[in-house]
């Protein structure tokens, strides 16, 4: 399977590290960021196949980050991952162009599947505008 490069963005260290480790074991090359600002910085330096973003983060929340990603890195599919399900935020995320919306606790396979689908679809549709 081709290596996929994923950016994992979440303010909770206790979630980030084990999840990155698990994804790495499944041949995903995983970079982590603990804030929106850090994420944007990393995105400007390297290219990724997919970003997995926590919706609720203290300084820049997930939707704000999503907006910025859609604007500056329109090819990058974003999978939203949240610990607190919310209909409004979920749909807002979709309207803003997120690829998928997953809820914690998320099964590794479910997340992997979403990442693969996201990467596949955006490879197929390089300049597809979502929002």
């Amino acid at each position: 399977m081709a290596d996929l490069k994923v950016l994992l963005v979440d303010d909770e260290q206790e979630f980030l590290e084990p999840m990155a480790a698990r994804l790495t074991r499944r041949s995903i090359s995983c970079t982590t960021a603990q804030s929106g600002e850090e994420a944007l910085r990393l995105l400007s330096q390297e290219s990724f196949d997919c970003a997995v973003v926590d919706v609720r983060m203290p300084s820049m929340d997930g939707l704000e980050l999503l907006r910025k990603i859609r604007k500056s890195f329109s090819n990058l599919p974003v999978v939203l991952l949240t610990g607190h399900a919310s209909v409004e935020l979920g749909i807002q995320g979709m309207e803003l162009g997120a690829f998928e919306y997953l809820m914690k606790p998320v099964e590794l396979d479910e997340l992997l599947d979403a990442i693969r689908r996201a990467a596949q679809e955006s490879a197929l549709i390089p300049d597809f505008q979502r929002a």
Partner: protein
Amino acid sequence: MKLFSISKRNTAAGIPDLDRRIAWFREILHANNAALGFIAELQETLQFSNPVTKAGASRMVTGVMVQAFRMISNLMRITGNEKHRELIARFNDLKAKISGTVELIPALKPVGFVLPLAGVGPDLAEAVGMKSAYLGEARRILRAHVPSGFAITVEAYRAFMAHNDLGARIASMMHGFREGDLVSRFDTSARLVQMVEHAQVPEEVSRALEEAVAGLPGGPDLRMAVRSSALHEGGHQMSFAGQYRSLLNVRRDGVVDAFRRVVASKYSPQAMTYWTERGFTDAEVAMCCCVVTMVDAAAAGVLYTFFPDSSGPRTIIQAVRGLGLTAGDGSVEPDTITLDPASRKVVEVRSGLQKILVRSAEGEGTEEVMICEADRRIPAMTPKQALLISELAWKMETALKRPLDVEWAIDRGGRAFILQARPLYDLAGRFGAARRPVLEGAPVLLHKGTRASGGAGAGPVCRVDTDLDIMSCPPGSVVTVGEANPRFTVLLPRAAAIVADMGEVTGHLATVARELRVPALFATRDATKVLKTGATVTVDADAEVVYAGRVESVLTDKEPRTAVHDAVREMLQTVAPLIIPLTLRDRFASGYSPRTCRTIHDIVRFCHQATIEAMFDLGDKALRHSRSVRKLISPVPIDCRIFNLGGGLDPGKDADSVEISDIVCRPMRALWKGMTDPRLHWRQTRPVSLRGFMSAVVDYNFDLDARLRPMGEPSYIFVTADYMNLNSRIGYHFSTVDARVCDTIELNYASFRFVGGSTSIEQRSRRAVLIEHLLAARGFETDCRADLVNARIRHRPPEEMDTALFEVGLLMAYVNHLDMALVSDEVTRRYEDAFLAGNYGFKA
């Protein structure tokens, strides 16, 4: 709702356009699967009264809503147009109603480890727990009548748990607790308490606590009360009835350790019983604390601002001398003072009997003191003091607009304090029905006491006193106890009823009995003597009587005893009709349009159907010329349309219809081999010629119940050389098979989903279970909810995948007629055994 802009390029370029459509199409199938899964979960939760938390409910509702939305979005991308705009309007309508009901979890901004009580209110309940939140509010309303203090937040709790990796260590022991008997529960509990009490409090947390303590007014010898303020996520209607620990008379330097011990009390046997019975997981219960300046109480107790009585709503106070620890634990008979909140007068004073008094000990903590015989009936408070406390409570009740359960104290100087206030949840409801009369002619063993929790239960009497008694008490017993001590709550989940010699309806044990709906009769004086161990008795708490033997007429109209989160369940029941029912019927019935979608399920079904039709849209010239769509001729009496995505069919064959021998698609060939196996029942309808096929189809039609319109919709199969996606509908049975079989093992998978049927939910569910068992026996990973079953097998060599698909084909044919036959679990098992034995023509 914002629309996305669709790239309008390349409708003529053929392949890229198709690729994109296929990508969106696969997303829709994925979302469809996910949405139906959430719907089935909701259905199962409501149907079988599964315990559900607020987080769980939000998850299901959000899941189905977001996936439905994704289906609409992707459908609109495929059709690229305004045709389905109405769907958006319908969806938004439903969303407004549903979101409005499902409370949004407020954005939790970090608040730090400690918050002063003055800065805390009900809006911060998720950060500090209900007790602290309400006490903060009480302080705002009553000022100096509430001792100063601070809240230890959920962040401090989580930091503590994370620091010692406790969460993971505990999680591995939780399963054992749930499945174990009482003995192993006690053992697990003891180990958990030990683990927490010996864990290290992280430095940032202890520093924050020490600073907060230093900031409290009072000299170096200030004493504090450290109380639990637990957060049960989503548990609005929870009494928090004394299941956790409060530590009194704690010194300034003892607060950090007290915090740790209060957290450990989350794992005491009675606490664990309480929150596991209510359906919470370990992660959903956070132990926050409330630290307040200690009141040197001369008298203390509880107060309910609202208490239903035969003469009307009352305010009831229970008072003891000394510290209020004994007020709810059944070890003393408190004084009871009843007031009329309307006239603001004391209407009744009933003096109790207090043998023990609790006070602050010299060093730290509390000690019990025996009261001499002569002094046992000294009243704890004067009517004037009772009024004083009541005024404070009524003031809060008015401000908070709800009835309250209040803990209070009066210090040696006569000053009144409120130590705790929380919403009183529905006593009237929990007390159950109106009182029942004693049954004529039934053998009465005991006719006294007070109903502490309504209902009736029968079983053999089991006298319980020591911990050893607790552990050896058989389930289904009528438990008799002397004092109504909270440690007996561990018995409640499996008890038929509980009868106590002493105990108050406002006490902890009574409150939990009501929550868990266990019939309870207290203050009987001598039930422990009158009711003989081992004898079967019937306790009718509503009639306040115990009969000898089983009295069926009293037992029959019991409410099912389920531990539920009422507020959450009610919320789900409100939104369920907007989500679950499928009101859209036949594609060809009149009124099949976005406008007639009344529920989210309707929208999901409509999108799924519209997508498939869009993919097969023969109005699209590009598709028509590509010969992508063919009709399948086969012995299987389903109208199948095959969509060749490339490489799935023999390129040499060009007719409008194809036979199985023309199919190159490997997984489909395997599936069909199973479906057309000679041992199957379907063989009878094998057509000889095309005309024969048509008549076979017609016959099949008329074989089925006239209510059904099975042939209304064809089944669609997408194929490539190694991939297939089948969406089949026969009557109200929906099957999906999605599979890939090639030489690369890591890419191979076969997923199967089966849902629906035309009979009752019981029979459909039985069929789902049958399918689940049979596929699991063949090595599939399975997952079954109500009438939906998902199964998957993957990463096997191609030959094994062929065999698996063959089995699926056999099974699909086998179960086709089955749901009407599955009249009982026993019959279902026989059909399972028949299939496993290769007896595919079996009829029970």
